[in-house]
């Protein structure tokens, strides 16, 4: 099987050798503007999330239900996929199945071509980002216009997304103003001459830029947050109204959705419509949620069900819990590593803690970059604590580390440490040698250990270990 494609061919090309998370992160951490932007944004959202989560007395119970509903769905995914297909078809929709990114792109391009259109509008969607749909459509002569504000910033800036929910989180208001002023004219209506960096003015510029596009578009492409097997209903949560524009105005709607987005019953939404907005944007409810079943209000509706590596993850006993993910990005917002490294360092459309497990699970650990992702965490556990479907990200990271190929120097060091720890006598002898050589420990360590002494002093090695003290004094009684 070919490697699963996960977007981002440019910045951190998975095929390009030499890319690693620590290397990418080391460069990012030097970018003080980036760190300032990320720090400000993640701290704002953390506080908002905490306040709306804490006001629900039954958050823990909702979280347990959310986790169980997803596990049950995954366990019976074949049954529910067939049920969904029947319901969507019965409601006048067309269902397509795509085993990988290439097939999904081919299907979508074919559907667009059949309409005779060469332009499409898009609702922000991780699935289409993952399969590189925009690039694939361009090769077929079809231009895809992103309509979510953050996606628009990324597209106009010829940039890459760095966050699941807010792909332009790495940009601040004055950078966004510049991108709009310089590049809007190349894509459509130019930015107003007197554009300021006031967020309201920037939002207004986006409104004006996209207005005519929405009103004229014949074909839209979306993802979905949830699909209901029993009714065939698709659900999209959004804030700006760009989603509603794409979902309702065009004559043809194509939704590309990962197979794990299923929920068995309509009732299950009562759980996820509480978990997702509060975890994601830190709101009691997002401004707009659209739900439609099959061909609605005269629209031609196509659903493309996407595997692209998901069934491989499903077969992974430890890793399959990552398929519970509802892409809320709470784990990114709370992660101290993400806050400092930024999303591009992860070299995947899925950054942050969930990306550190999802990317290697979907794509494998063939490259240095993908092998370094499970180590992009101090295992502090903040991600697990905020995850609304209780994905134990630290445990999956540890599991992936056990499967990764390790450098030989490290293997030798770990084997030596294991040998010492296997017998307490060996440890005691080593401690005594350390105690005798304590004055000879250099201030700067060599090789990979220099990372420590670049910014930190080492503790002084004591003359006597605890166990020698215990033996000498009979546990302090002499």
């Amino acid at each position, binding site marked *: 099987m070919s490697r699963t494609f996960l977007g981002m061919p440019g910045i951190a090309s998975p095929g390009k050798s030499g890319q690693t998370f620590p290397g990418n992160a080391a460069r990012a951490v030097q970018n003080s503007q980036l760190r300032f932007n990320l720090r*400000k*944004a993640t701290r704002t*959202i953390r506080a908002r999330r905490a306040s709306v989560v804490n006001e629900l007395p039954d958050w823990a119970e909702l979280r347990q239900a959310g986790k169980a509903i997803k596990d049950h769905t995954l366990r019976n995914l074949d049954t529910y996929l067939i049920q969904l297909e029947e319901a969507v078809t019965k409601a006048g929709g067309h269902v397509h199945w795509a085993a990988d990114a290439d097939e999904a792109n081919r299907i979508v391009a074919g559907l667009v071509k059949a309409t005779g259109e060469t332009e499409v509008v898009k609702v922000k969607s991780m699935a289409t980002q993952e399969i590189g749909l925009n690039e694939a459509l361009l090769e077929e002569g079809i231009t895809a216009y992103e309509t979510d504000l953050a996606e628009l910033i990324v597209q106009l800036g010829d940039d890459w997304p760095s966050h699941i929910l807010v792909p332009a*989180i790495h940009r601040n*208001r004055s950078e966004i103003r510049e991108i709009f002023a310089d590049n809007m004219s190349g894509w459509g209506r130019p930015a107003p001459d007197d554009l300021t960096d006031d967020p309201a003015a920037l939002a207004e510029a986006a409104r004006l830029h996209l207005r005519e596009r929405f009103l004229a578009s014949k074909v839209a492409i979306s993802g979905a947050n949830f699909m209901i097997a029993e009714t065939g209903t698709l659900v999209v949560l959004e804030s700006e109204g760009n989603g509603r*524009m794409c979902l309702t105005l065009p004559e043809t709607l194509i939704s590309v959705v990962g197979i794990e987005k299923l929920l068995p019953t309509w009732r299950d939404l009562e759980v996820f419509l509480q978990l997702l907005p509060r975890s994601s944007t830190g709101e*009691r409810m997002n401004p*707009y949620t659209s739900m439609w079943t099959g061909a609605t*209000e005269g629209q031609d509706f196509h659903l493309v069900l996407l595997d692209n590596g998901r069934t491989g993850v499903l*077969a992974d006993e430890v890793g399959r819990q990552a398929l519970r993910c509802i892409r809320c990005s709470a784990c990114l917002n709370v992660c101290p590593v993400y806050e400092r490294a930024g999303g591009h360092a992860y070299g995947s459309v899925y950054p942050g803690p969930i990306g550190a497990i999802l990317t290697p699970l979907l794509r494998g650990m063939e490259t240095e970059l993908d092998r370094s992702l499970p180590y992009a965490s101090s295992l502090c556990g903040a991600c697990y604590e905020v995850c609304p479907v209780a994905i134990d990200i630290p445990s999956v990271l540890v599991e992936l580390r056990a499967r990764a190929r390790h450098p030989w120097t490290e293997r030798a060091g770990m084997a030596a440490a294991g040998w010492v720890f296997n017998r307490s006598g060996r440890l005691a002898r080593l401690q005594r040698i350390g105690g005798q050589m304590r004055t000879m420990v250099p201030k700067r360590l060599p090789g990979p250990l220099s990372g420590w002494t670049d910014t930190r002093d080492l503790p002084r090695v004591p003359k006597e270990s605890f166990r020698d003290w215990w033996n000498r004094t009979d546990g302090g009684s002499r």
Partner: protein
Amino acid sequence: MSSRDLILARVRAAVAGVPDVEVPRAYRGTASAAAGAEGLVELFAERVRDYKAVVHVVAEPEVPALVARSVAERPARRLAVPGGFPASWLEQSEIDQVTDEPRLGAADLDAVDGVLTTCALAIAETGTIVLDAGPGQGRRALTLVPDYHLCLVRADQIVAGVPDAVARLDPVRPLTWISGPSATSDIELNRVEGVHGPRTLEVVIVV
């Protein structure tokens, strides 16, 4: 083998022998409180105001005057009014009513000043109104393209929480859940009201 069969076969192989899971539903389900109870009206009004929407709570006989005042203040002259919207509520308003029959084109929709609707139900805890294209609500684009949306909510349509709403709604109808005016958090994760949807949402709660 078709991709459909391939994916289904992969799924079956992946989950073979994996035990199933019971779903614990110990969270707050449908509330015992009746819809429209007094506390719910207040909570709903407060939560909608949190989204920076304009909220009024009025008695039924005052509705025509309030609607007239609201649209005049905007000012909104040409207003889309979906079929089934109670005509009596518009008695005092000096407006040009635009109907959606036959269907308005996108450009025509963009040319109206606003839209007046009822709703299917409302959720107190989250400050949400839900439209299901029923009488007085119109199709989905009608409440999207115009820049001003005035929505009338009867007190007995306000339910306590999300589970109550899900239990009452018909998933086969096109549904739009609206919680405040159009907004974005895409710039430095700060919420800014007013992007592509109506930038002004006015909610009239009829008690």
